[in-house]
C-alpha cells in the first residue's frame, strides 16, 4: 500500500527529489484515479516526473507528444485500411464457397451483412497511445506531453478520455479502460488550457525549486560534485534567474552545468569558469553577456 511519504521515498530512489506538493499530487492521482495537469516553466522536471514515476512504480510509459494539428487518428485510434484491403483481397476467393449455399441474391446479401462487423472489429483497429494505455494489461502511465501545443479540438477530444477513461469508437461502441492509467499532462503555459480540461485534473504547478531542494537535486544526480561548489553554483543560478533573461536557466540547465563542472574537475566557481561554460546556462546570444557580467560581479 502506497502512502504519501512512500511516494516521496520512491521518487527519490528514482533520482527525483520531490517536494510536498508533488508527492501529494502523485499520491492523490494514484488514489483518486484522476489525471494531473502539470504546468511550469520548461526544464523544471515535468516530463522527468512522469518518466521517474513509470520507472519506480513499474508502470509502462505510454507517451503522447502533442503538436499542432494532432487529432484522434494520432492520439486515440485509427482504422488499418491497408490490412482491411488485404483481407478483402485474400477472402475474395473464399467468397464463392461461402455464398454457394445461398440460392438467391437476397439471401446472399443477408448472409454477407451478418458478417459486416468483421471488418470493423478490433483486429483492424490501430491503437494509438491513449487507447493503448487504456487497453494495457498492466496499469500504465500515460504521459500527454506539452498539451499546450495542440489545438482546442484536441483538448475537447481528451475530455471524455480523461474524465471517464473510455474511448468511443463509432463503429464499435464505447471501449472502457481495462486499467485506469496514471495520467500526467504537462504544459508550458504557452496557451491557456480550457477550464473544462483543468476541472478534470489535479492542478500542479512546478516552479523553480528552493535553494535546498535544488542543491539536493544536484547532489543526488552528481554526487562527485562537492557540496560547497554545488551550493555556490545553485546560488549563482538563482541570481541569474532574477536577471530577466530571455530564457532563464532551469533545473535542467543546473544539472547540465553540474555535469560540465564535474567533467572539468572544477573546484571553485570563478568568473573564468563561468565565462568558458556560459553556453550551458544561457541559450540566447543577448543573455550571455548579462550572465558574464553577473559572474564578474558576484564571484570576483
Amino acid at each position, binding site marked *: 500500500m502506497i502512502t*504519501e511519504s512512500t511516494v516521496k521515498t520512491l521518487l527519490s530512489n528514482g533520482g527525483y527529489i520531490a517536494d*510536498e*506538493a508533488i508527492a*501529494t*499530487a502523485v*499520491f*492523490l492521482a494514484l*488514489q*483518486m484515479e*484522476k489525471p494531473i*495537469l502539470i*504546468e511550469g516553466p520548461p526544464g523544471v522536471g515535468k516530463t522527468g516526473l512522469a518518466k521517474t514515476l513509470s520507472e519506480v512504480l513499474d508502470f509502462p510509459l505510454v507517451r503522447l507528444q502533442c503538436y499542432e494539428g494532432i487529432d484522434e487518428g494520432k492520439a486515440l485510434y485509427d482504422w488499418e*485500411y*491497408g490490412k482491411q*484491403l488485404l483481407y478483402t*483481397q485474400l477472402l475474395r476467393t473464399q467468397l464463392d464457397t461461402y455464398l454457394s449455399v445461398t440460392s438467391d441474391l437476397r439471401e446472399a446479401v443477408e448472409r454477407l451483412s451478418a458478417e459486416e462487423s468483421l471488418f470493423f472489429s478490433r483486429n483492424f483497429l490501430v491503437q494509438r497511445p491513449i487507447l493503448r494505455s487504456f487497453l494495457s494489461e498492466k496499469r500504465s502511465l500515460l504521459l500527454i506531453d506539452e498539451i499546450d501545443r495542440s*489545438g*482546442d479540438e484536441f483538448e475537447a477530444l481528451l475530455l471524455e478520455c480523461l474524465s471517464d477513461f473510455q474511448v468511443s469508437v463509432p463503429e464499435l461502441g464505447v471501449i472502457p479502460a481495462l486499467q485506469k492509467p496514471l495520467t500526467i499532462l504537462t504544459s508550458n*503555459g504557452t496557451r*491557456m488550457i480550457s*477550464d473544462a480540461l*483543468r*476541472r478534470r*485534473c*489535479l*492542478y*500542479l*504547478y512546478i516552479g523553480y525549486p528552493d535553494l535546498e531542494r535544488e542543491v539536493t537535486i544536484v547532489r543526488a544526480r552528481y554526487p562527485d560534485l562537492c557540496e560547497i561548489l554545488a551550493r555556490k553554483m545553485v546560488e549563482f543560478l538563482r541570481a541569474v534567474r532574477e536577471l530577466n533573461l530571455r530564457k532563464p536557466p532551469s533545473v535542467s540547465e543546473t544539472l547540465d552545468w553540474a555535469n560540465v563542472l564535474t567533467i572539468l574537475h572544477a573546484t571553485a566557481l570563478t568568473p573564468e569558469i563561468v565565462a568558458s561554460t556560459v553556453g550551458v546556462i544561457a541559450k540566447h546570444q543577448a543573455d550571455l553577456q548579462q550572465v558574464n557580467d553577473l559572474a564578474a560581479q558576484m564571484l570576483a
Partner: protein
Amino acid sequence: MERVITRFVKALRERGVRVSPGESMDAVHAVSLCGLSKRETVRSILRLTLVKNANEIPVFEEEFERFFTTSSSNVQMHQDFGDLINSLIHVVEGSLFKSNVESFQDPDDEKINILVDEEVTEEDLENLLDMGEDNGDEEGPEIQVQLNRNPGKMEAPSPSEYRMENVPSVAFYQGYNNSKNLAFTPEELVDMQEVVGRMLVRIRKDIKRMKEKESRGKLHVVRTLQKNYRHGMIPFLLALRRKRMEKPRLVVFCDVSFSVSHATRFMLLLLHTLQNRVVDVRSFVFNRDVVEITDRLRNLPVNCLLETIDRGDIVNLDDNSDYGNVFLTFKREHLESMRGKPAIIIMGDGRNNYNEDNEWALEEIREKAGYMLWLSPEDRETWYRGDCLMELYGSYCDRVEVVKNVDELSKVVEELFYTLYDHNDTRTWKNRIKPAREEKNYDPASYYIRPGSDAKPAFDPEVRRSW
C-alpha cells in the same frame, strides 16, 4: 470537515477564484484520503484540487493563511462564523440586543457559548458593550468587528478580479490626461497581453475555419494517387490543392504628437502583440515627419521603444503634426515598397495645424491600399472645428471610427481582422469596396452613418465637392 471545506471554497470564490462543485467534492475526497494531520499536506491537497490556474495560487496562499490561522481549534469554529455575524447584525438592529446578551451569558446555549469562549475576543465583547451604551454610533463597532473577523468580505476586490476590459481603459484614460508618464507599467502590459490573448482565441477559431474552407481547392491528382497507393489506387483519401495563403498585410500610421499619443501607444502595442501570429504589420510613427518603426518594434521591447519615442529620437516631438507632409513623404519614400494591397490604418485626430492638406497624396495612397481605416480619438461633433481635416481625409477612407479606449480599439481591430480574413484575397477586397463607393455617390449624406445606428451624419461630404 465538509463544511469547513465548503466554507473555504466560498471564501475563495469571494476572492475571485472559480471553484466548481466537482472540485470541492474532489477536495473533500482528497482530504479524507490523506487526513488532516499535517498542515502542509492539507495546503497542498487543497491547492491541487481547488486551484486550477497558476495566477490564482498567490490568492489561494493568502486565503489559506487567513482562513486556517488563528488557532488549532478554529477549524470547528468557522462553522459558526456566519451565525456570529448574524447575531451581531441583530444586535445593531436594536431590539434584540438585550436578549442576545442574555443568551451570551446563558450556559445552556452551547453554540453561543463556543462563540464566547473562542471566537469572540474580549475586545469584541467590549465593543459590543460599548454599543449597548452608545446606540447613536451604531456603525463603528459593528463594522470593526466584521472587519476583524472577515477581511475578505469587506475588502474591495483587487483589480485582478475585475474582468480585464476595465483595467486597460482606466489606464488609458489616466495616460490620456497625464501624457508625461507614458511608458507602460508591467500591469498594463500584462493586461494588454490578456486582452489580446482573449481576442486571439476568439479570432483564431474563426480564422481556422475560414482557412480550412479556403484551403480546399481542386483535386491534386498526383498526390491523391500517391496517398492511395496502398489502397490499390482506390481513392479513399483525397488530396486537394491548397490555395496559397498569405498573412494579411497592415500598414499602420500612428500620430505621436501630444494630443493623441497615448491612444497610439496602445495601438502599437496591440498590433505588435498580434504581429507574428496573424498579421504582417508595418508601422510608422509621424508627427511632422514620418518614420518606419517596424524593425525597432520587432527587436526592441515595447517599453524601450516608447522611451525612444518619448525622447524624440525618432520624430521630433516638439513639432506640430502635419498630415499633408506625412502623406506626401510617405508617397514619395515608401509607397513603392508596399507589397500587395495592404490595409492601411491611420490613427490620429486629423488636426493639420493649418498646413497644406495634400489630399491628392492620400488619394494616391488610397489607390494602392486594399482598405483604409481611420481611427480618431475625437468625437464626431468636434471634427469640423478648428484645423481638423477629418472630414476631408475621411472621405477617402473606407471607414472612419471614433476610438477612445482600449475596449473600442480592440473591438475595431477585431472587426478589421474578420474583414481581412474574410476577404484575404486582395482581389475580393477590391470588389467589395467598389459597391461601397457607388453607394457613396448615390447618397453621400449616409456615408458616415454606420448601418444599424441612427446617428446623424457628422458632416456633409458635398461641402468638399463644392469647393
